[in-house]
């Protein structure tokens, strides 16, 4: 394909954005160099917050796991918006729908496994010392 064809293709696609394409939002907050700097700064802040939450007593101990989960989800959101340029615009519907389906499957696999295996573990009879000793 020649360079000209490429330019015509770009001109044709004003209403349809590829995942990660930034041309659409280059005049918005998440676009261009400012967008990458903003995303980088937010990601660093969230990372520091995660390490602080895990390493210090700032957060009530039993709540640390929730705090870490929330911070991780927030940081993934920052990456999606500022680095992968996923937006809520009409040109991004296909990308967002694929992402939503992926999130659904990931949630089913992870939460479902933890849930089911936790119950199995709880309801399993304990091993006798003899069984434990002869385990492979």
């Amino acid at each position, binding site marked *: 394909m020649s360079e000209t064809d490429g330019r015509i293709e770009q001109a044709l696609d004003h209403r349809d954005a590829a995942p990660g394409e930034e041309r659409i939002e280059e005049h918005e907050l998440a676009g261009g160099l400012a967008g990458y700097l903003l995303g980088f700064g937010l990601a660093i802040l969230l990372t520091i917050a995660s390490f602080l939450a895990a390493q210090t007593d700032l957060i009530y101990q039993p709540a640390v796991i929730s705090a*870490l989960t929330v911070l991780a989800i927030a940081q993934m959101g920052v990456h999606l918006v500022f680095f992968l340029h996923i937006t809520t615009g009409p040109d991004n519907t296909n990308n967002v729908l694929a992402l939503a389906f992926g999130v659904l499957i990931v949630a089913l696999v992870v939460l479902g496994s933890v849930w089911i295996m936790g119950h199995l573990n709880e309801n399993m009879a304990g091993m006798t010392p003899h069984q434990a000793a002869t385990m492979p």
Partner: protein
Amino acid sequence: MSDITAGRAPRDPYRLGRSHSHGLISATGHGEGGPASKFVTVAYGFWIFLLSDIIMFSAFFAAYAVLSKATADGPTGKDLFELTRVAAQTGLLLTSSFTGGLATLATHRRSMAAAQFWLLVTGLLGAAFLFLEVQEFATMVNEQAGPSRSAFLSAFFALVGCHGTHVGLGLLWLGTMMAQLWVKGFRPEILRRVHCFSLFWHALDIIWVAIFTLVYLLGVSS
């Protein structure tokens, strides 16, 4: 438009033949503006691949979450993980993702020197990340805490090793992209590949966020 095709335009209201002569079409890829451009379809296909890759990782995450307490009286995460190294790895990979973005911006400006420079920085940061990870694995294996020690360690090496393999393959791809960009220039197909690579690199960083939170921080704090 040639004389032969001139009469066809009115009979092709949805531009299925993608006539180039009428300028902007309102909504490509939405069923009425004709097919989306190759750039969009290639990137979208790669987006689907990335999401399925993330689903594959979710199986490793589920296995790790289930087995993380199954240490078989061996070392736990608290004994093994060094958070300073993990913090350094996180910083390296995050900065690498950022410089990858700067490389993308440089390709938009069609600046070969800047694009090659930022791609090189991205690769060096990724290589430093991989070095730290290999160092960690080697230390653990030396301490009799290899993947065969317990179910917890099997799941740990599978999950973190799978991410490390992705980073390693990404580095090979990065080198290929630098060479192709250098030799062939800013051609549309090269730009599509560079774009897919940057999507891949950012997605790896998202997976690392989940790893450093669920594996390292939770492993050390609980």
